[in-house]
């Protein structure tokens, strides 16, 4: 089973090398990432598998929207300009040879198994008392390494800022005749009526219960963002003001960092009496997961909205 999945993963990626049509390339990419997420699940990491599955879908959506802009901006009569000289067979052969050579180098220089598991054991044994909760992975990125999580949230903030800054946009999204066909499709409406409520319930469940079971702020936030994106794509609802969401996102980021500073960095845990400690830890974990989920949801919502609203020249 595992070997089959690995093989599928590599083959779908290789197909992209020869594929010429853009939409198919992106779909193979989505399939490859999805198979990767199944492999991650088999490897015993449901958190990573959930994150990768959500990411594969989001990546595919970003690429498809990007391609939509590309195809609509392109003048159909004008041929796409590409550089005239194609690579010679010799240069292709040299490149393949070089890639094989690099692979050989990696295989030659990586010596036998030598894995030192003492940190793993420390984490498994101590996470529940040091940080709280039952999801050790969540305890690591919300407790031990919250400094990293802070900067990861910062990456999202900056990415949103980058997307806003790089694109021209207007606040009212374009109403195009061609697009409304998708939204009026009965199949889409039917599926959305069933799937969308499940999505948001699942997202909230992941966020709130992330410290007990697999899940957490990131995965839940992605699911919540998916709900709002579905709502936009199918029902054509534009009732959320993007500048307000942007402000909320920044404030949530500030709240995350302040909470992290106050509680983890200042080692506030030492001040809490012993019998209140589990409750305090649980409240901290739920609060951080909630904030992170909110931040991720806002961030991706703005990203997607800016993509859709790029003005057509």
């Amino acid at each position, binding site marked *: 089973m595992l070997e089959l999945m690995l093989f599928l993963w590599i083959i779908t990626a290789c197909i992209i*090398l020869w594929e010429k049509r853009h939409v198919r*390339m992106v779909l193979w990419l989505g399939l490859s990432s999805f198979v990767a997420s199944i492999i991650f699940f088999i490897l015993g990491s449901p958190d990573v598998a959930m994150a990768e599955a959500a990411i594969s879908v989001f990546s595919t959506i970003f690429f498809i929207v990007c391609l939509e802009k590309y195809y609509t901006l392109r003048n159909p009569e004008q041929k796409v300009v590409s550089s005239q000289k194609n690579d010679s067979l010799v240069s292709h052969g040299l490149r393949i040879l070089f890639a094989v050579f690099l692979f050989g180098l990696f295989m030659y220089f990586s010596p036998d198994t030598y894995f030192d598991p003492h940190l793993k054991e420390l984490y498994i044994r101590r996470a529940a008392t040091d940080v709280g909760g039952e999801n050790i992975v969540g305890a690591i990125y919300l407790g031990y390494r919250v400094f990293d999580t802070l900067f990861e949230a910062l990456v999202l903030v900056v990415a949103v800022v980058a997307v806003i800054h*790089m694109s021209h946009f207007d606040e009212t999204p374009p109403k195009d005749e061609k697009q409304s066909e998708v939204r009026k499709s009965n199949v889409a409406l039917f599926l959305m009526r069933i799937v969308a409520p499940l999505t948001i319930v699942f997202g909230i469940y992941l966020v709130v219960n992330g410290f007990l079971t697999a899940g957490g702020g*990131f995965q839940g936030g992605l699911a919540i963002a998916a709900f709002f994106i579905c709502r936009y794509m199918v029902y054509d609802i534009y009732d959320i003001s993007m500048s307000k969401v942007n402000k909320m996102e920044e404030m949530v980021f500030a709240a995350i960092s302040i909470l992290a500073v106050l509680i983890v960095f200042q080692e506030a845990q030492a001040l809490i009496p012993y019998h209140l400690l589990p409750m305090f830890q649980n409240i901290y974990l739920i609060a951080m997961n909630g904030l992170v989920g909110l931040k991720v949801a806002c961030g991706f919502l703005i990203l997607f909205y800016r993509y859709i609203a790029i003005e057509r020249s």
Partner: protein
Amino acid sequence: MPANIIEISAILMFIISFYGLISTKNIIKSIIFIVLMEVSVVMFWLSFGFSLGQLPPILSSIGGMEYIDVVGIENIADPFPQALMITAIIIGLSITAVNTIMFITLYRKYNTIDWDVAKERSLTE
């Protein structure tokens, strides 16, 4: 020689993405290969200490703190790379988003999806 098949396939995928980056002239394909490279690095990190049938590092699936030694540490997956890789995956998505936005803006300006043509056009303006 490397330890397990997952590591070999992760490195193989890394090399395939690298080959894709050095061989394609299409900007969109380059962005796709960057995504694949990032997934391959995540796969590599998750291959440490792997043995088939490992339980996820969640106390409820192990059964509680008392059962850790009953199950055995080597039968529980390593939580540390997982936490780091969730971070890496989210960063990867942000990178993809910024890359595609930059590509669209580049396309609007230069009307090409080819690296060499974009280079010429940026030099001549």
